[in-house]
């Protein structure tokens, strides 16, 4: 059952890499979060811990429903073109992502010296982390940066569950709160940037340089 969720996470992440438009990216993020929820729920069922159930529930409420909805709402409100603005085109992005996947696999297998069966989950987590970073660097709009950060957060969450068996409950809750607040703030900033510059292409902010 866990394999399904891991596979889903991988597919959702690749979908994000090849997404050309913002709604597609948000949708893929929703899928990714859903599979993250699934993975957490399975761990919770296995370990029968109340706190894990709560964390899974929070993932569902915040990351599957709340944040994607808020992002879509912001997109609609600021009403800009939906192109993400690719610095690396889809083909190159895909190749890079494959490279990341391989790197993560090697990294988690050799450097962390895990057994192969155990290494899969950290490898996927690393891959999601790297992809989040990739999205932030190689996509032009501020929306992509927000989602990239959220993806990295997902990867980090997964890594913590895989390697450490989950973070302490209160830390987890605090992180959720942080993520939610930061998304709200960033959404507000995107709105402000758009109002001031009539676009959200952060590359053009370089004009502000002294």
């Amino acid at each position: 059952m866990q394999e399904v969720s891991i596979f889903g996470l991988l597919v959702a992440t690749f979908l994000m890499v090849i997404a050309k438009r913002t709604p597609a990216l948000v949708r893929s993020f929703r899928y990714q979060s859903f599979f993250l929820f699934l993975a957490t729920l399975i761990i919770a069922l296995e370990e029968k811990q109340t706190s894990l159930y709560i964390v899974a529930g929070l993932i569902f409420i915040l990351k599957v429903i709340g944040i994607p909805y808020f992002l879509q709402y912001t997109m609609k409100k600021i009403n800009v073109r939906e192109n993400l603005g690719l610095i690396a085109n889809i083909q190159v992005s895909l190749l890079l992502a494959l490279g990341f996947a391989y790197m993560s696999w090697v990294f988690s297998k050799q450097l962390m010296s895990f057994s192969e069966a155990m290494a899969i989950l950290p490898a996927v987590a690393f891959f999601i982390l790297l992809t989040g970073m990739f999205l932030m660097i190689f996509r032009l709009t501020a929306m992509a940066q927000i989602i990239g950060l959220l993806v990295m957060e997902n990867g980090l969450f997964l890594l913590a569950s895989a390697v450490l068996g989950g973070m302490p409950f209160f830390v987890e809750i605090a992180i959720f709160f942080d993520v939610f607040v930061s998304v709200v703030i960033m959404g507000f900033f995107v709105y402000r940037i758009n109002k001031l510059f009539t676009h959200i292409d952060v590359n053009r902010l370089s004009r502000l340089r002294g």
Partner: protein
Amino acid sequence: MSMSNLFNNIILFPIDPLSLFFLATILIVTIPSFVYSFGYLKKEYSPAKILIGQILTFLFVLSMLVVVTVSNMLAFLVAWEIMSLLSYFLVVFDSEHEKSIRAGTIYVVMTHAGTAFLIAAFLILYKHAHSFDFKLVKMASQSLPAYIKNIVFIFLLIGFGTKAGIVPLHIWLPYAHPQAPSHISSMMSGVMIKTAIYGLIRFVLYLLGVNNTWWGTLILVLAIISCLVGVIYALMDQDLKKLLAYSSVENIGIILLGVGLAMYFMSKNMAYWAILALLAGLYHLINHAIFKGLLFLCAGSVYKATGTRNMEKLGGLIRTMPLTAFCFLIGAMGISALPPLNGFVSEWLALQAFFMGAWHIAGDGKVFLGFCAAMLALTSGLAAACFVKAFGIIFLAKPRSDYAVKAVEVPISMRIGMLFLAGLTIIFGLGAAIIINPLSQVAGFSLGVNTTGLDFSLNNITIQPLAGNKAVLAPLIIALILILCGLLGFAVYRAFRKKTSIPYNTWDCGYYQLDERHEYTATGFSKPFRIAFSFFLRPYRATKKIGDSFYHIRSMTYETHTTLVFKKYIYEPALGLTFKSARFMRRIQPGSIHVYLAYIAITIFLLILFVRKF
């Protein structure tokens, strides 16, 4: 070590004579300055701004008090930083003047550079003592390796030297002190820079302990340079408050002469002379706090009454502001070391220490200490010239401009502040025999020498530092003699003067109608010194004549100024280099968020590789 352990030894109550001495010094100057400020600030600023200023001033005084009483290095640093920041806010209090902002920036940069050195020194000490507590640091410093001690000493000297204004770290002082409101200048110049001397005594003499001759020698050399550079620049300046600020550099030099000489004697195992030297330094410290505070208050009164600090535009104020003139005269006489006022006592003690040292030390030290004494004498001579200029140009002769004509005496609160400090100037001169006793205890405590067996005073009238030799100072007797001479001279004058006076025009060399434009100027007064010290001052002079022919000139301009050697040859190249490297580093700043994110990603990868590799 946990944080609670770091802080459980902060004692905010004065526990030793050194702290007590500095507490007294701070309070003696800040209280009259505070009283003075009520009259000074009125009508200069809006009530809200005055309130903010007074709160800041109060906190500033509080922070200085904390600096000299804590017994923990960490707490010391915190208080030190608070003091620096509050004084920065007070320097830029006149925020509408661009000059204030500039002065504040120079000040805050310099003082933070100094604090960086202090932090480094404290961390080195912490590494060896495993504690920030003074007692434990003192114990650990007994077993410190010599090279560590040397490094710590150099760092402390740079750190505290920046605050004290030792040449060549003095450049912020003539900008920041004049720019603050006058009561703040008086506190900064009078007391704040003394906290640096406190730091030097506390950390170098008391905690580290001196066992190198070169420490004392280095401080003595720096002190002599500070003395001469400070007083020469003071002589050249036409801005009254800037003159006083440069004079502070000079006086810090004199104080450091005492401190450095004490270190020199300690390394030679001459505890008695070390105490005398430190005593002279401490005496001059409190004296300078008093008369420099007083002079800055007087300068503030002149500024308040006339609206200018440029001496060339003043003159004749003794008729409109007699009390300010009197107080300024007392302060000027004190700072010029004229007997029987306080400056004379401390400089006499310092000279005495130098002579005794030169007498008792064998070898090269004799020549060196003799040379130091000569330089100190030169300094006091130049200081006297400087204050003759200041008093003469500002208060005597005819007013040189409308600013000076309209001057009126200042309000009562300002007069109280000035009179109190003028009184102290006299008391600290005449009461030297009594004051010297507690000071010798402070000096003995700082050096770790028991003073109970040593004698520094005699029968309340004379001071005899050396029981056997004839080194006697009696300010009371000197005062008496001077007063008698004055009375005698006056009596002779009364007895033999012509009974009738005939009003007559001054012989004017054919220039009929002499007016204030023919008066001696401050620039003119200092010209002989400008010529004598031209190798250092590098004066620049330009004359421009505009006229129909060589013989008929319609107008003429004359311009002269001196080159600020330290600024031009040390700070400007350093600043240029900094900007150049900053411009070079700017190439990696494209301003694009993506590139910055890529930088972060690359850094993380490199760090991971680094961690795996090592």
